[in-house]
C-alpha cells in the first residue's frame, strides 16, 4: 500500500511538473517580425574603430613610411597608407565585430593592440 501511495505521489508530481513546463513561453518568438529589437541596436556585423596616431614631433621631419592596420591573424589588411611620422592622424576603419585585436605595423615597428574600446591611440612607442 505504501509503495502504491508513493508511486502515485511520484507520478502525480511528474505530471504537475510537466504541466508547468508546458506553460512556459519560448524565449524567442518564431517569426522575426514579432521580435522587438533594442532601439539603440545598430544591426552591424562590423565595428568602426577610430585610430588616433600621435606623431613624434621632435624627429627628422621627413620620415615617411607605410602604415598597415592588420587583422589579429595578419591575413587581412584593414587599412594602409604612407604617413609622416611627425604628424598626428585620425584614421577610421571598420573590422568584423568578432575581431578582438589588431596589429599596427609601421616600418620596422609592430604592435598588437587590444580592441577593448573602439577608440585606440598609437604613438610608435615600444615599451
Amino acid at each position, binding site marked *: 500500500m505504501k509503495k502504491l501511495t508513493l508511486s502515485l505521489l511520484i507520478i502525480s508530481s511528474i505530471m504537475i511538473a510537466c504541466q508547468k513546463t508546458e506553460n512556459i513561453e519560448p524565449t*524567442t*518568438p*518564431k*517569426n*522575426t*517580425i*514579432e*521580435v*522587438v*529589437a*533594442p*532601439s*539603440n*541596436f*545598430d*544591426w*552591424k*556585423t*562590423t565595428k*568602426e574603430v577610430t585610430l588616433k596616431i600621435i606623431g*613624434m614631433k*621632435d*624627429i*627628422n621631419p*621627413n*620620415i*615617411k*613610411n*607605410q602604415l598597415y592596420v592588420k587583422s589579429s591573424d595578419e591575413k*587581412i*589588411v*584593414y*587599412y*594602409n*597608407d*604612407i*604617413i609622416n*611620422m611627425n604628424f598626428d*592622424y*585620425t*584614421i*577610421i*576603419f*571598420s573590422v*568584423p*565585430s*568578432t575581431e578582438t585585436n589588431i596589429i599596427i605595423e*609601421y*616600418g*620596422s*615597428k609592430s604592435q598588437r593592440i587590444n580592441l577593448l574600446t573602439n577608440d585606440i591611440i598609437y604613438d*610608435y*612607442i*615600444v*615599451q
Partner: protein
Amino acid sequence: MKKFILTSILILISLFSFSQVTNNFEDGSWIYYYNRCWGIGPNSTYFGTKVNSAQNQSFNQSSVCETDNLGQVNRCILESPWINLSPGNITFNHCIPSFNGTRTLKVYIFKKMENNNTEHIHLLWSYEYLDNLQKIAIIPNSYTGNWKIRWEWEGSGGNSRGQIDNILIPGINISDPSNNCEPYTPIIIDTIYNYYPAINTSTLAFEDLWPSYGDYDMNDLVIGYKFKITSYDSYVVSVDGTFIVKADGAGLSNGFGFQFPILPSNILSVDGNGNQNGYDMASNGTELGNINKATFIVFSNQHDFMSEWNTVKGENVCPEYTFNIHIKFKQNSITLQQLSIQTWNPFMVKNGIRGQEIHLPNYEPTQLANYSLFGTGDDDTQIGVKYYKSKNNLPWALDITGNFEYPIEKNDISTAYLHFQDWILSSGENYKDWWSNISNGYRNPNFIY
C-alpha cells in the same frame, strides 16, 4: 633683388649653421629617448644608462642621464642617434656626484661601414675625474657626414656614478625610428591599394516590400560586394566596386545604387554599370538631383540579368551576375579619410519607382527618396532619429561581413539562423557569428539555399 638674394643666402646659412641635435633629458623617461634612437636604457647594449629625475641637483634641471654604480658595472655607454655632422663644438654638462674610485669619460664618433659591417671609431675626447664638481665639456669636431656620438664611462672601486646633461651636437638627426633607427632614406611614394571591407566580399541582403515587412526571408536581392581603393600620396585616384548579384527572390523589378559621402563634383567618370533606365545621370556618371553626395546607380532592374530566382531549392539556377564599377576621381580632390569608404550608403530602389528607396537600418535616404512613405505601413522612420526601421526597430536590409548563405524562399531568416534573434535581443553582443558559425545549433541547413 640683391637684398632679397643676400637675405635668402643669410637665412640658409644661419639655418644650416644652427642645426643641432640636442638632449636635455627633460622628458624623464629612458623609453621616450630610446624610441627616438638614443642608445639608452636597461638593455644589454646600453645597460646602466638611464634618465633619472631624482638627481635634479646636478645641473639645476629636473632630470639627467645617469649611469649605474661604476664601481660595480665598470663600464656604461650612451649613444646618440645617427647625425649628419657639421663642423663645430660638441658640448655637454657632466660630473660624478661623489668622488671615489677611479672614473673616466671618453667621447667617440663612430659608424658602421655598409659593405663589411666593420666599425670606424675615433676618440674625440677623454677625461679622468679628480673631483665631483660639475663641468662643461667643449669638444671641437671637424668630422662631417653620418656618424653617431658615443659616451663611454669606465670605473673601478667606490660607488660613484656618471652624469651627463644638456647635450648639443652640430648637425641634423637622420635616424629613422621606423627603420630600426638606421639612417633615413626617403621611401618611394607609390600607389597604395586598400580593400573594403576586405579582399573578399561581404554581403547585402534586402527585403523589398518596404514599408511593409514581407516574408522576412532576406533574399529578395542578395549582393556580394567589395571595393578596391587606389590612392597616391593619400589622395584617391579611383575606386573599383565589385557587385555580385546572387539571389533575386523578388517578383518586383528592383534596382540598386549607393552613395559616397563626397560631392559629385569630385568624380571624373564612372564605367561598368548596368541599365540605368528611369534615372537621370550626369556626364560624370553620378546621379543628377543628388547634389550633396555622389550617387551611383549600378543597375535599374535585376530581372535584366537574373533569369531565375536562385532562392528555391530544386528549381533552375542562373549564374551569379557581376558588375565591376570603375570610378575615377579628380586628381588630388579627396583623401582616403575624406572618402571614408566604411560610411558608404547602399540602397535598393523598389520596383523601378525612384522615390522608393530601401536602405540599411539608420542609413539616411538620398535626396530623391519619397519622404511621404516614411511612417507608413510597418515603417517607423523618424527623420533625424531613426531610418528604415519598423516600430519593433527591425530593418529591411542587412550588411553581413563575408559570405552569407541566404535563406530559401518564404522562410523567415530566423528559421535558417537559429541565433539570429539572440543576436538581435542582445544588441549584437551575443552570437556575433550567427551567420558564419557552422557548429551544431547555429543553423538549419534545410532552410538555407
